[in-house]
């Protein structure tokens, strides 16, 4: 087996995506908190849930184990931490861009008091909320007043 480096493990983990928004990696979303490689070759991956009841967490744990296991890492442990609590502010700029291209309006900064949510279809600022809860816990349902298309907004929390 080729020598595993922390760098190589991080590369492998870049292939792990959110099963509900498959254009986003867990690293880009800020779900991946830490990766540790022990001298004996075992890997400890630390993740944090987006929402308490996020049904994707189980799949993410399995995907992490599969991604590393398939590359020859024999001992992989995935640990879930709650502190500090996940925030959309951890999302990378790349992730936000990919999210917008995918048709989901990315979250504004948590501290923003009057967020401007752009329509991911036509970039109009004239948008309004239809429902505080969208297709998943992390999204709200919006509609664009210019192009009339409904779209998901990733809520800032």
């Amino acid at each position: 087996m080729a020598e595993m480096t922390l760098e190589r493990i991080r590369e492998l983990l870049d292939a792990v995506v959110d099963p509900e928004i498959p254009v986003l990696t867990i690293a880009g979303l800020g779900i991946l908190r830490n990766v540790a490689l022990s001298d004996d070759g075992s890997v400890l991956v630390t993740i944090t849930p987006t929402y308490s009841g996020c049904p994707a967490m189980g799949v993410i744990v399995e995907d992490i184990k599969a991604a590393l296991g398939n590359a020859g890492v024999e001992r992989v442990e995935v640990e879930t931490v709650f502190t500090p609590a996940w925030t959309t502010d951890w999302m990378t700029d790349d992730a936000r861009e990919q999210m917008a291209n995918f048709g989901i309006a990315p979250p504004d900064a948590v501290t923003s008091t009057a967020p401007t949510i752009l329509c991911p279809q036509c970039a109009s600022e004239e948008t309004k909320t239809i429902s505080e809860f969208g297709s998943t816990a992390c999204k709200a349902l919006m509609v664009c007043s210019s192009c009339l298309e409904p779209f998901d907004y990733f809520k800032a929390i």
Partner: protein
Amino acid sequence: MSPVTTTAPLATYLVRHADDNLIIGQRLAEYISEAPELEEDLAIGNLSLDHIGVAMHLYQYAASLGGAGITADTLAFLRTEREFSNVLLVEQPHVGFGDVIARQFFFAAYQTLLWEALVSSCDETLSGIAAKALKEATYHLRHASGWVVRLGDGTDESHTRMQAAVDGFWRFTGELFESDALVDEMVLAGIGVDPARLQTTWETRVSTVLSEATLTHPSDPYQATGGRTGMHTEHLGYLLAEMQWMQRTFPNMEW
């Protein structure tokens, strides 16, 4: 000796709050597909998931402090009615959408204050779970408050129904702020919060929304109690029968 209960005081404290969340999560799940519009079905499904997620984390933590064989699943699916310690509010059944909203409104207003206080718990795991749950509860309260106003200040019919729902659940709100020896012990240890000190703020926030909704503040002086000691209303047994059916019928089954 029951193999499914825990005895450590912290575990008992965690299970109380887990029970509150699991039971309201189950109640919300019952209503999915009955909401007045599709968006609300999605919202209610998401609210339910948030609550069940919080319950799962609290049960897992409690189980880790307990004896062998105790897991989040045994706590959720193998305890009997009298072993559940949730407040009576969350087990109350609903008929219409206004009931679902009123119950959620009172409970979310309480939980935002509870989690906010528990963020400062000296127990790091509980504090972490609280920080996460606080973000969700804040959203829940905003959602429920919006509907209380929309229905209360809506048509004559929606106003009447919303008023009836608020009046109906009011008698179950006093229990949210009760203390007992366990709470005192947790407060003394810097782990828990005395719910009595949340009541004034809760009352202010609730009153503000009720007046904006043009609803009359309930004045029923009778307040029910007993959930924390396992003395439930008749509704919990039916809820558990449905929720635990699979595990009781096929013991040790896993997904």
